[in-house]
Structure formats: C-alpha cells, structure tokens
C-alpha cells in the first residue's frame, strides 16, 4: 500500500509541468496569483518535503479538495463509493459463481460438443469490450425496445414512488450495468476454471477416487477442490480489470459512482479527486489480492508451505 | 583425512566438500534454515577408475556430483582435478577445464534440449572448445553416434523421436564429444527398463575400457553398482559412511546402514531365506540432521550408546582400503557383525 502510493506520487511528478500550472493556463489570472496558490499548496517545497506531506496526508485520510464538487474529496468519495461497491460486488459474485460453474462443467467434458459451444461463446464474450457491450445493451433495451429506463441509478420521480415501485425502479436501473459487467466477468472465470478443471480432471487422484467407489458427483468434487485455488488467485488478479470495466459501464449508464466521477474529474482536471480515485482503486486491488491469497491458503494447503 | 588408495596423485581429489542450501522464505528471501545436502565429503578417483556413490534420495549424492563440477557452487572444501584447484578457477579456465570433466544425467527426457537436433547437441561441445568445425565436426558427430551404438543418420533428428535408452546414448555421445578423462554419471540407468539398462551399463564399461575414462558413478541401485564400480562409497544424509573396494563392500559390509541397505535389495531368487534388516521409519531431514552419528536414531547395532548420539564418527580405515564411519566397528579386525550375504 505504501509502495503503491509512492508509485502514484512518482507518476504525478513524472508528468510535464504541474497540475496547477495546467489548471490555470490560459486563464486571465496574474502570474503572481498562480504563484501564490502554488506556494499555498506547498508545490514550491523540495521534493522530499512534498513527499512526506503527501504520505502524511494519506495516512490521516486527508485526500484534498475537489475543485469540481467544491467539497472535500473524502466526502465526495463517501457518497460515491457505496454505489460502485454495490455494482462491482454484484458483478463479481455473479461472474465468479456462474463462471466457475460453467468452467467446471466444461472441464470435465473437454473436447465434447457442449464444451466447444461454451468455449466459443466465452471466447466471443471475452472479446467484447465492456463499454461496447454496454453501448449495445443501451441501444437495444433502452433506445430501441424501450423496456428499461435510460440511465442513472433511479428515475427522476423515484422519491415520490410507493415502496414497491421504488424497489422495482432501482432494480430496473441496476440490471443493465450489472449485466454488462457480469457477462464479461463470467467469460473470464469460465475460461480459467475450464483449464484448471481440465488439468485436475487428468490427475491420477481422480482415478483413485473412482477406484474407491466414489460416485461421479463425488469424483467431480475431488477434482473441483484442487482446481479451485488457481481460480481464486485469478479472481484477485482480475480486480484491476474489473475496476476498469466499472469505469466504462458507469460512464455509459450514467451510474453516479466512483468510475463515472473519475472520468468527469479527469475532464475537469480535478486533480485531487483523480489521485484519490487511483489510490482508492489501488487499495481495493491490494486488499483483493491479500484476500485472494488468504482464501487460497484456506482451500489449498500446499500454497505457502 | 582422505580415503587415499594409491600412492600416485589421484585424478580427482575431493576433500571436505560441503554444500549447504539456505532455505529462504518471506518477502525478501532471508535465509531461515540450512539444508546440509553434502556435509564434509572426501574421496579420490584415480585415472580410469570407477568410484560409485550410492545412497537413497536425500543422501546428497547428486549434489556432491554437481558440486565437484561446480555446476553448483560448493559451500566449502577442496576439489582438485588433475592437480588443478577447481574451486580457484575463474570462469574462463573453468570452461576450459570442462573439456576434461563431463556429466551424464539421469533423466533422458530432460537432459536434451527438445529444440536442437541430436547432431547440434553433440556438436555444441566441439564448437565451444574449437575441436572441429564444418565437415570435420560432422564427421566427429557421426563417429560418436556410431561409438554409442546409434545410426549416424540420426544426427538430423530431434530428441522426441527417440526412446529413453537411445536418448541416454545420445547424452553419452554429447559428453564424449569433448574427449573428457572423467565423467560424472548421475544415475544414468535409473530411468531405463531392465533390458535397456543392461545395454547402457555395458556401453559405459566398453567406453571406459576403450578410452581410459574415470567415472564417478552416482546410483541408488546397488545391483547396478555391483557391475560398474571399482570402489563404492555409501552416502547417508550428506556424509560418506562407508567406502571400500567393491568386493569387500558387498561381501563384508561393516557399517550397520550399509548392511541394512544391502539386505533390503530384493533378490531374484525365490525361496531364498535371508536375514533382512528392516530400518524403522524414514531418513531424517537434512535440514535437521541428528547429532553424533547421523544414522544413530535408526541404527540396530547392539552396542549403540551415548557416544553414537553425541560424537560424529570419523571415516577411518578399519581394514585395508576399507573405510567406515562408525564408533562400533573395530579397526583392522574381522567383521564384528555377521555378514548378511554370507
């Protein structure tokens, strides 16, 4: 985590000029004013001092001021994060469970007709960029068929709807972003689970289980248990990609979450908010891979010993 | 303290060879433990002689073989080959020395680069030591293939087209290409079927006779060793526990471990009643070897005592040319234990 934030700091310094010079470039402001702002934000201090302050601020949770929202970055994030977490969490659970189920099914009958159909389907799904899938879903279900409400998290009249309708309204807004994120995720996990299950299926211990008189269901369970660890490791490594996918999907469905706000912040040069978003996503990634590591150790005693 | 058998300087002289592998763990790979794979091993190999290094897995025999060639850098000890201090050589002189010291590996599938033709693999040594080039090199490759009993036109084929026995012949041809005086044979026949194994054993012996080669023959199969070796060194947990001429070792093994090892070998003679010494449990881990005599926790010698548990026995000449590391074997006397094979 510390290393990741250092990396972000280095990345910030790598860019030409500095964010303040850029932000006020071309604006009819006196040079002195800009210099004053720079000094005020400590950008004139030597690099190590800046670095120490940067690190200190992060540790204290001081993420800066969002020029775009005119609020502290911390507050902006507190509002946005739960919405993104909802979307990503749902998508992750769906893709993991469905993908693992499909992949495990394929792995035990590798080469069969059903497996080939599934392999081709997941390959195509895997090749669909999330943002285009999202655009397509939007075009089809909203603009052409008109089955689902356009974008956002709730409709304009949400507050005055009765309770049942409100739930329905929320679900209707959720379904497309969830679908766009999950479909691609399913293909990722299915592809991986297939190959790890196929490998496990060829291991001699599968034959041992059969020789013991274990029924096919139990034999599949034997194989699946050993094929689990690599998939969990992958799930940890996939988080950055999922974050990336969420950015596009939120953007297209105008889902008011972190991803959407990050892109807006980039366009508005809201520099503190972008930095915070990068830091936050790194934190999620690090946490995710630590968690994956932990679960992996739980399901496979060989890992780490 | 060396097991010197000849008065002339031996071809290979290994003294107190030690290789400890650090076990690294954690983020920055700090060593947390030491595996004492080879722990103070001394022996000599004379010109044209075969010394067999036998032991079970984990005894350190393979590591010893590789450390001598500096394929693994030894932790300490001296290795002299043909009078030169192998450990003191710089990279260039070491490469030059490798013309004289070669190795044949156990796994006939892993020891040949699958992307090189057989000819290219054999030729590589000729090229790096500038022994032959072009048509001359081609000629040498064909002659080498012929010498190991393969057809010369195999030179253009790839390793996967050959059986295990044939690959092992290719590996031998590759080692012979640079005309070495000494070859470390690291379990060269363990992976082969019985009938093929016999072919390769005979080939190795023919080559030794024709070329005056010296072998360090690493093996776990005592029966093969009985057909290959002039002298035999038995390793257990990184140490040599017994070293003797072949006939003496097989007829009158003295160290209790050697006796147990010999008695464990299944003999293809049904109905023959033998006194079998069954060792209890598994060999201890080389990361945590027992104090004193490394064998003492499994030893069944009737006089086993505190000395065995606390004092490391030296490898001593208990009978002419018969070296034993055991407190309980009396020096220069008839064997204290009844021979298992008598």
């Amino acid at each position, binding site marked *: 985590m510390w290393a990741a934030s250092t990396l972000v700091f280095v990345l910030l310094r790598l860019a030409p000029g500095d964010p303040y010079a850029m932000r006020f470039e071309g604006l009819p402001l006196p040079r002195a004013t800009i210099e004053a702002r720079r000094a005020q934000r400590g950008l004139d201090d030597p690099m190590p001092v800046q670095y120490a302050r940067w690190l200190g601020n992060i540790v204290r949770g001081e993420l800066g001021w969002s020029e775009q929202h005119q609020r502290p970055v911390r507050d902006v994030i507190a509002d946005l994060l739960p919405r993104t977490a909802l979307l990503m969490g749902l998508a992750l659970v769906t893709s993991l469970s469905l993908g693992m189920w499909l992949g495990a099914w394929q792995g035990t009958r590798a080469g069969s007709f059903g497996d080939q159909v599934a392999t081709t389907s997941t390959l195509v799904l895997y090749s669909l960029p999330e943002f285009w899938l999202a655009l397509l879903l939007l075009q089809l279900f909203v603009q052409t068929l008109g089955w689902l409400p356009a974008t956002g998290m709730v409709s304009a009249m949400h507050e005055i709807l009765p309770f049942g309708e409100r739930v329905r309204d929320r679900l209707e807004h959720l379904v497309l972003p969830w679908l766009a994120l999950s479909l691609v995720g399913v293909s990722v996990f299915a592809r991986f689970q297939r190959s790890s299950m196929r490998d496990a299926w060829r291991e001699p211990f599968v*034959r*041992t289980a059969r020789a*013991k008189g*274990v029924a096919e269901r139990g034999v599949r369970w034997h194989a699946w248990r050993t094929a689990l660890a690599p998939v969990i490791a992958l799930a940890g490594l996939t988080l950055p990609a999922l974050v990336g996918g969420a950015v596009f999907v939120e953007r297209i469905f105008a889902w008011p979450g972190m991803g959407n706000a990050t892109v807006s912040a980039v366009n508005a040069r809201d520099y503190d908010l972008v930095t915070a978003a990068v830091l936050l996503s790194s934190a999620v990634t690090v946490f995710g891979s630590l968690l994956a590591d932990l679960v992996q150790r739980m399901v*496979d005693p060989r890992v780490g*010993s | 303290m060396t097991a010197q058998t000849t008065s002339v300087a031996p071809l290979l002289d290994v003294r107190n060879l030690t290789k400890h592998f650090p076990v690294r763990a954690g983020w920055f790979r700090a060593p947390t433990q030491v595996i004492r794979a080879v722990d103070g091993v001394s022996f000599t190999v004379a010109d044209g002689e075969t010394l067999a290094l036998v032991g079970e897995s984990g005894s350190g025999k393979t590591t010893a073989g590789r450390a001598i060639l500096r394929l693994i850098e030894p932790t300490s000890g001296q290795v002299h080959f043909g009078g030169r201090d192998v450990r003191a050589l710089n990279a260039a002189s070491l490469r030059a020395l490798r013309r004289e010291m070669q190795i044949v590996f156990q796994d006939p599938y892993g020891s040949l680069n699958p992307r090189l033709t057989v000819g290219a693999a054999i030729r590589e040594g000729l090229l790096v030591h500038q022994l032959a080039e072009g048509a001359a090199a081609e000629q040498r490759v064909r002659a080498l293939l012929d010498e190991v009993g393969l057809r010369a036109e195999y030179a253009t084929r790839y390793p996967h087209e050959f059986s295990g026995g044939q690959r092992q012949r290719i590996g031998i041809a590759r080692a012979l290409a640079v005309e070495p005086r000494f070859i470390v044979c690291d379990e060269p026949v363990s992976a082969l*079927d019985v009938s*093929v194994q016999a072919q390769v054993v005979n080939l190795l012996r023919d080559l030794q006779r024709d070329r005056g080669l010296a072998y360090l023959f690493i093996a776990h199969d005592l029966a093969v060793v*009985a057909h290959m070796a002039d002298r035999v060194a038995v390793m257990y947990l990184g140490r040599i526990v017994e070293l003797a001429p072949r006939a003496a070792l097989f007829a009158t093994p003295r160290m209790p471990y050697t006796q147990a090892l010999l008695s464990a070998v299944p003999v293809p003679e049904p109905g023959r009643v033998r006194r079998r010494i069954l060792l209890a449990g598994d060999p201890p881990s080389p990361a945590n070897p027992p104090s004193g005599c490394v064998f003492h926790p499994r030893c069944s010698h009737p006089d086993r005592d505190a000395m065995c548990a606390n004092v490391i026995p030296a490898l001593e000449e208990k009978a002419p040319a018969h070296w034993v590391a055991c407190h309980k074997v009396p020096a220069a006397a008839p064997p204290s234990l009844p021979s298992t094979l008598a």
Partner: protein
Amino acid sequence: MTSPLLSVHDLRVSFFTEAGPARAVDGVSFTVHAGETVALVGESGCGKTLTALSLLRLMPTGARLAPTSRVEFDGADILTMPERALRSLRGDRIAMIFQEPMTALNPVLTVGDQVAEVVRVHTALSGRDAWTRAVDMLALVGIPDAAARAQQYPHELSGGMRQRVMIAMALILEPALVIADEPTTALDVTIQAQILELLRAMRERSGMALLLITHDLGVVAEMASRVLVMYAGEVVEESPVELLFSAPGHPYTEGLLAAVPTLDTSRERLRTIPGTVPPPTDWPAGCRFRERCAHAWDRCASDAPPLVQLGPAHRVRCHLVQEPERRRT
C-alpha cells in the same frame, strides 16, 4: 480346484493414436484365486498397467474394450455390469494401490479424510465413526502417531508414509482382491523393503488375494507365488515362481532374467536383449519378440505362436516349445 476369484478372459484394449490404432492389451487371459499372490511382470509399454486398470474399468478416456473380453469377479462380469454395481465393488471388494502416492492422493484433502471416504462411501457409518476407523487403519499400516498424521495433507508426509496411506485406503474394508500397480517403484530400497513387508503382513492377516504389477523381478521373487510375463500386449509366459526363475520357458523371460544385475555377480558383462520394445501401434507380425530373439526362424515371422501348456500351471507362447531343437546355444 475351486473356481477362481478373478478370471480374465481374452482382454483386449485398444486406442486410436496419431500413428494408427494401438492394440495395447491384446488377448490377455489369466485367473487369480482367493488368497493368492500373482505377479504381472513386464517392461514399460508392455500393457501391464492398462491390464490392471481395465479390471476395474478405469482405463483412460479413449481406450476401447473389445466386446469379447470378459473379466469375471466372483461370477459377475465386471465389464458389462451397470455403473452402480461396479461402484459398490470398487474399493470394497476390489481395491487398488497406485504407483505414485504423491499424485494418486488428492493434495488438498487430509489423508484421514481420504481413508475415511472409502468407509463413508461403502458403509452406513457416520463421519465420526468412519474417521475413527481410518485412524485405526493408519495405525495398523504402521503410521506412527496416526491420529495426528490423519489431519495432515499428502505433501506433509514422506513417500513411504504416503504409500502406507494408499495401502490403508485400499485395505480398510478388507477387500477380497487388491491390485497393486508398481507399489514400490517410486520408493527408496529400504522403504521398499518396509512396504513389501507390510503388504506381506496384511495379506497374511486378511487373506486377501494380491495382483502385483511390477517390472522388478526381485520383488516378484520375494512376493509372488505365480507369475505372468507380459510382452507387447500379450502374456508370453505363465509360471509358478520357482519354475520361472529356475527354468524360464520363453526367450524373453530368459533374456530379462539374464539382464537383471544382481548383488553377488562378479564383474562380468551383463547379458542384454538387443533392441527395444516396439510401440503398440507397430507390433511385428508373427511372434512379437522375433526381432529381438536369438532363436527366431522363418516360422516365427509367419505364425503367431499360441500360449502352449508346458506343465501344470506353466504356459509359454513360443514355437520353441514344439520345436526345441531350434534352440541355439
């Protein structure tokens, strides 16, 4: 003679490979009586492991059994019985021990679990009782501190201990027949001695029959009462063990015995069998050993020799049986 426990008749298993069809097991017939130890010997590629696997219909995918093949166990044909009946036989009446206990055991389950699973699958015992039985069995096969070891995973045990776990798993329900496929090949010689001793003791204790698949003639001599020698997918000799070693009938058996290095030979050349075992896609016509045989004559190339009864329980697949004068010395 009582009816045999296991009777294999004309077992044929084939594959389709890139190089054409491979008749990996080609007309193997033999019997195993209750309490008997029979060894199946041969070099790699002779079809002995595939024969063993076929007895429980555990062949790898792609292997085909000929419709005429029969494997009768206690009167029932294993090759045609429904999957359910077969499952209740496996592990309970017929058990298997595999060569490499590292890969043959499931790496992510405790060894106690894997032994107890056999009990749970075949009996009505609860999980706890099955576990207790598993721990008792692990202790019986000589695993020290079995209750603690049962909680460990295969990679935490040594090779010898793992093979003891395999044996515990195979023997826990006291099967009538145990098929052991190279049970000691992956082990060191002193550990091999322990495992062979254990198998002998267990056999005496339970009276099980043992079909021992091995390439090691020393192991055969120590363990078996009857021997089947396989070469190129066929049984070439069947013989009581003493007779096999004292008077081998088939040139291949003879060659094999001569090629085995022994401890007390003085340093003379080993005898060898020239050439190698042909691949199963390319068995020679006539006698399959002909190309490596010192005695072969034209009849060997044209007629495939039948398995001829030579004496009581001694059968040999060689034309020399009928024309012993052809033998070259």
